[in-house]
């Protein structure tokens, strides 16, 4: 079994080749997709102004209002279904969210601390993003008896509210890999792998990956730290590779990219 994550940009720029690549896999695939840019685009068309917050550490991030969660659910679900639409001609494919069969549970952050416009730290009502708390491995294994590909949208489920939540696709993929213990977790991005001095780092032990994560730019640092944790938890390989090439899955499995193992 493989867990594959492709970001929204890979989907937008290389959809056909990505689909062909999934079609070639001779194994079960759990496919997590992103789509943040697509959500932003549709939000704009609907006249919803994006809201950002700044953390006390100065990190600016998107704030998911209820209104935007609606768009998030629509757009992410449509992306999932377009994958199913394309794959279902040859692969038994199903698309799920974290709520289906309580597949992926999360906790909504009810209150978050921000740095407000006056530069003061303030606690505000949290948006509709979540932190993943558990994955229903049994459900995925049962679904894999009947399906070749399980497409998972970055939508986790908080049953206490109850609400679907916007979760980061990488976090979703890492959480699934930790629970499902696939042969490999592939992260298909829009770069060739982890770059140091503009060269791809080919192999890293979990320890090296963790060390490097503290010295590297945002985005990739989280990927590396999570990759380190995931391999330490018993997943054989995490491969960070380019999703914009021909047959990106085969290429990643051949080791093109950064392999953490």
């Amino acid at each position: 079994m493989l867990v594959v994550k492709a970001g929204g940009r890979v989907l937008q720029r290389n959809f056909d080749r990505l689909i062909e690549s999934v079609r070639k896999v001779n194994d079960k695939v759990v496919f997590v997709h992103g789509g943040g840019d697509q959500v932003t685009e549709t939000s704009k068309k609907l006249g919803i102004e994006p809201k950002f917050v700044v953390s006390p550490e100065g990190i600016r991030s998107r704030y998911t209002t209820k209104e935007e969660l609606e768009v998030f659910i629509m757009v992410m679900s449509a992306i999932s279904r377009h994958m199913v639409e394309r794959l279902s001609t040859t692969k038994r494919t199903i698309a799920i969210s974290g709520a289906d069969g309580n597949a992926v549970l999360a906790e909504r952050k009810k209150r978050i601390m921000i740095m407000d416009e006056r530069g003061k730290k303030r606690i505000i009502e949290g948006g509709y993003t979540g932190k993943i708390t558990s994955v229903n491995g049994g459900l995925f294994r049962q679904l894999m008896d009947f399906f070749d590909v399980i497409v998972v949208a970055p939508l986790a489920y908080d049953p206490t509210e109850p609400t679907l939540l916007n979760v980061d696709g990488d976090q979703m993929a890492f959480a699934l890999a930790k629970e499902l213990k696939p042969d490999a977790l592939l992260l298909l991005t829009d770069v060739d792998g982890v770059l140091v001095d503009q060269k791809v780092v080919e192999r890293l032990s979990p320890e090296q990956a963790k060390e490097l994560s503290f010295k590297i730019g945002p985005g990739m640092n989280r990927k590396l730290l999570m990759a380190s944790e995931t391999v330490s938890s018993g997943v054989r390989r995490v491969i960070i590779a380019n999703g914009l090439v021909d047959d990106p899955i085969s290429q990643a499995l051949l080791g093109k990219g950064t392999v953490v193992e």
Partner: protein
Amino acid sequence: MVLLKCPVCGGDVQVDDNALPGEVIEHECGALLEVYMKDGKLALRVAEQIGEDWGE
């Protein structure tokens, strides 16, 4: 300025008149305090259940 008591150490805390509910103050005792409105007046409580988080 409004003079309030720290709910942790009991010491004095100076709070700005136009502080907003949710505003966080680190008291000299180390406590992280949150400004809130109680009966129409500014009050202080320990800031809890906060965390950073990202979505997609």
